């Protein structure tokens, strides 16, 4: 598949926003349970606004993917069958919950635990929707695995928790240390599941072949014409165009930037604000590369019909 930059931004930005909210809400719950010191409500308000900015930016990025963004509201219609439709409904609901939770902290309403709990459920539902948009497409076998939504959930949580740690360190909150420890744990777990999906995809053997694509049962079939000499939607949308060498470089690049470097900075960065901010920025860049690779890695069966020009 050809990775669309709007979708890379959408999924990484809202993932970080959801993860940031979940980390903040976890901190709130932990403070209730007296596991950590109760932070000032301004800490939650600032974090909530940051998460809203990230999800809002993701929402804006997503409209660049659409041919007719002005009709985007129609996408809420088919929630019974379409995971994309479900995502379109859950994303604004999550943003509304996030806004209400931040407002409740700002204005001192008491109901933050209830609002936060509901918003946390929406955040998790949104991860599932985003992952299942790809995971439900059985024809793209690299995506059709439970590892797809699991990776969206874990990568978003790792990125958001790391952002929470950086934010806490910048504003001087004592929550920076527990957030950084959680971010390290989440980064390691996400690395395990992402590498598991890489290993799984490497072992995949295609079910659909040129023989079943044109219905000719002969082991040697060679395409001599794809029916036109220029490009088409089919040759642009479903091919990433990167050489195997470049794919390999991007794979190692995202494994280093999304997992290894942030984990080292978290483990040995002495918890300083500069180290945590650098870890988040490097991991975010790594996640953009990870998402690029996720799309490029999926081999669409229609590509069997486009093996030779002229």
């Amino acid at each position: 598949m050809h990775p669309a930059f709007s979708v890379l931004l959408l999924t990484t930005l809202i993932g970080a926003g959801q993860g940031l909210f979940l980390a903040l809400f976890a901190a709130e719950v932990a403070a209730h349970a007296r596991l950590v010191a109760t932070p000032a409500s301004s800490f939650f308000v600032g974090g909530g606004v940051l998460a809203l900015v990230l999800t809002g930016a993701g929402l804006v990025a997503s409209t660049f993917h659409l041919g007719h963004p002005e009709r985007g509201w129609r996408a809420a219609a088919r929630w019974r069958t379409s995971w994309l439709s479900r995502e379109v409904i859950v994303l604004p609901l999550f943003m509304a919950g996030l806004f209400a939770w931040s407002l409740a902290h700002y204005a001192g309403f008491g109901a933050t635990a209830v609002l936060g709990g509901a918003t946390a459920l929406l955040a998790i539902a949104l991860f599932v929707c985003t992952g299942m948009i790809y995971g439900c497409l059985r024809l793209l076998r690299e995506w059709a695995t439970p590892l797809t939504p699991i990776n969206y959930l874990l990568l978003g949580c790792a990125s958001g928790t790391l952002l929470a740690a950086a934010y806490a360190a910048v504003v001087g909150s004592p929550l920076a240390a527990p957030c950084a420890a959680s971010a390290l744990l989440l980064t390691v777990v996400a690395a395990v599941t992402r590498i598991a999906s890489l290993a799984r995809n490497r072992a995949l053997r295609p079910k659909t072949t040129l023989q079943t694509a044109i219905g000719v049962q002969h082991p040697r079939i060679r395409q001599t014409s794809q029916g036109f000499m220029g490009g088409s939607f089919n040759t642009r949308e479903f091919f990433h165009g990167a050489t195997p060498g470049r794919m390999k470089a991007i794979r190692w690049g995202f494994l280093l930037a999304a997992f290894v470097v942030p984990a080292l900075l978290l483990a040995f960065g002495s918890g300083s604000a500069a180290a945590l901010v650098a870890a988040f920025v490097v991991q975010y860049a790594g996640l953009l590369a990870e998402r690029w690779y996720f799309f490029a890695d999926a081999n669409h069966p229609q590509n069997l019909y486009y093996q030779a020009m002229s």
Partner: protein
Amino acid sequence: MTQLALVIDLNVCVGCHACVTSCKEWNTSGSAGPLADFSPYGADPTGTFFNRVQTFEVGEYPDTQTVHFPKSCLHCEDPPCVPVCPTGASYKRAEDGIVLVDYDKCIGCKYCAWACPYGVRELDEARKVMTKCTLCVDRIHDQSLPERDRKPSCVLACPTEARLFGDVHDPDSAVSKAIRERGGYALMPEQGTRPANHYLPRRKTELTLHADDLVRAANPLRVDGMEPVPAYAGGTAEDHST
């Protein structure tokens, strides 16, 4: 229930692209607006087509066959492009089984094209909506046309009658008979889409040639007494005939 579909005979398709151009001509002239063309006379032309003809070489030289393969929407009975559409713009008509896109509802998210294993949906890059073969829905039901013209444009254009059109759910239709009697098959059965369009396989054409067939037994220019000495002295075709 009716399921309109095409049956494409690969045994007689000569790869002339008449179906491609007639499809483009009919569908670019319709009420839905022209199909995009960018740089049509330039170095890298591109545009929207509902139908493409591809060519494959099967076998190893010198025992090869050229297979011309027309490819358009297969109007699946279980179309994977329909449930994924978030707006309901992509739908399958109950009355005749045609899979269509409502261009006024489509938001151009391309998700349906991702879900289709055959790559037969093309985003029109001028109108920014998903487009595909409509089986010439604006033509086949048009009562103002003479009955013989109520067929998809590609079917009428095909010079070798490689394209048949009809109801594959009616066991007595010409398309059902062709599928039944000539080994009609569906593409990518493993994808579980149950395509309505079928393809008829290439058939082996055998010709038994006997040695005397190479000699002109009845030469209209023959002059008695001046016949050439036959190169072959065995029996004639009548001796072998079945």
